């Protein structure tokens, strides 16, 4: 249903005119709303008889001329990226382990792993952070990182498992027939392909991970929001809260949007890539949150089908 044009006849001159008018009216409405919000923000406000300048007044933004402020802000950015990088690598490693255990042929490895995954997935990451902070008393950085590893590791594990299941059966059979062990076939033949197929979804999940480092704000890790809003905010006073918020938002959007676009670009490349015959990418939009659910369901289904076939054969 990508071409919605099939839903109606090609618009004639009258329909095109109406559509254009509607488009302009909607545009004006949106612009009007924006102008209204901006003017509200720009208006000077009075509190307790004292008149304060509007939100776009220079006196609310002048701290950003001070290089020392940017040193602080970049420390926050680095703290966020550090937590995200460590957690990202850890989550991928855990994900590989979990996907192997989850697709193991031994039932008493496979089934408890499935339970563990359900348990970790159903819990808020924030609660996990509190858990680690209180039980293991690791300090805020490791509480954030370990909770993110556990949570995202389960999801990446499920994504990789789906990638493994989606591979043509012949890959494994060929590997086994040239004398590889079960484990060798997994690591040398199946995994690299599954990883490549699922890379766009994994990157999209890493964006989620990066966003979730901001939960460190609540458990006391000095990442970017805490640095900007709490530390700088309380140092320079409430007057700069709005501008600090805007700067923080801009930084987050810049990082996340570029990563999301990268995931989509990669997905398009994997989907259409090269001249040769390539399987279609696993999902159309890797950044869609429904993507994980979709590949998981496909994997479950394929597994149960295989189970039935092999038991019928055996």
């Amino acid at each position, binding site marked *: *249903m*990508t*071409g*919605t044009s*099939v*839903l*109606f006849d090609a*618009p004639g001159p009258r329909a095109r005119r109406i*559509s254009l008018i509607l*488009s*302009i009216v*909607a545009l004006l409405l*949106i612009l009007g709303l924006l102008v209204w919000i901006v003017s509200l923000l720009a208006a000077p*406000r009075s509190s307790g008889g004292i008149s304060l300048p509007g*939100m776009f007044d220079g006196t609310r933004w002048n701290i950003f001329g001070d290089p020392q402020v940017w040193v602080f802000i970049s420390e926050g950015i680095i703290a966020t990226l550090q937590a995200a990088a460590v957690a990202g690598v850890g989550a991928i490693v855990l994900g590989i382990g979990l996907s192997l255990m989850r697709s193991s042929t031994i039932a008493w490895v496979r089934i408890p792993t499935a339970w563990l995954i*359900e348990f970790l*997935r*159903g*819990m*808020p990451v*924030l*609660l996990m952070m*509190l*858990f680690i902070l*209180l*039980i293991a008393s690791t300090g805020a950085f490791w509480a954030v990182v370990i909770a993110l590893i556990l949570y995202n590791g389960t999801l990446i594990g499920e994504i990789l498992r789906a990638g493994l299941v989606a591979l043509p059966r012949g890959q494994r059979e060929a590997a086994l027939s040239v004398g590889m062990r079960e484990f060798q076939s997994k690591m040398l033949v199946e995994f690299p392909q599954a990883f490549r197929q699922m890379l766009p979804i994994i990157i999209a999940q890493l*964006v989620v991970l990066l*966003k*979730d*480092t*901001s*939960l460190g*704000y*609540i458990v006391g890790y000095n990442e970017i*929001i805490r640095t900007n*809003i709490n530390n700088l905010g309380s140092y320079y006073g*409430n007057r700069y*809260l*709005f501008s600090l*918020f805007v700067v*923080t*938002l801009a930084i*987050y*959007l810049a990082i*996340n*949007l570029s990563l*999301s676009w990268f995931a989509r670009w990669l997905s398009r490349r994997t989907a259409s890539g090269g001249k040769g015959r390539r399987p279609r990418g696993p999902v*159309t*939009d890797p*950044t*869609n*949150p*429904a993507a994980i*659910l*979709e590949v*998981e*369901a*496909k994997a*479950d*289904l394929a597994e149960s089908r295989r189970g039935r076939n092999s038991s019928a054969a055996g």
Partner: protein
Amino acid sequence: MEQLWSLMPEFWEGFKVTLLLLVVSGVSALILGTLIAAMRISPVASLRAFAAFWVEIARNTPLTLVFIFTAFVLPMLGVRAPYIILAFIALTYYTSPFIAEALRSGINGVPIGQAEAARSIGLGFGQTVSLVVLPQAFRMTVPPLINVFIALTKNTSVAGGFFVVELFATTRQLANDNGNIVLQILFTAAALYLVITIPLGYFAGQLEKRWVVRR
């Protein structure tokens, strides 16, 4: 164990607030998200662009930052509201793009041949959409939507960091007050979240498997 039992009323109070957050923000996000999705597929170009912009910005903003806006920046701008209302606003805003995307991918998931077939037997736009496309899209949309609500359930815990005493904030308080049974308190809280999320997840998985088969 007895000590843990005696804390149950407090857990229940927190759990009720979590449920309230889930239901109110869930319903309002569903309404807002549907509106955004409708804009996203509408023939009016400026509405489409606005909806795409909304989805992209809202989806890439961390929830904590949204809460910073509603809990700190809005009051500074002169908005006076109880913190739970501000939490509703934050969760609704944050969840709306995920709803919109789930709905849109449901509609995109209906094979184009369905609409072509409907058109070729002479159905108009309204009939094609209401009789052929939407019934199929709806079925495909339910599992991802449930998944969005599971995520929302877990996200309500962030409100606990911003002055709303729901399950997470209650747990943190109880763990501070009862140092000897911290582990039990944390597991109780986890169980209360799982009571909501696991059945929902199971349900979504079952539905998803059904429609994967049919395709």
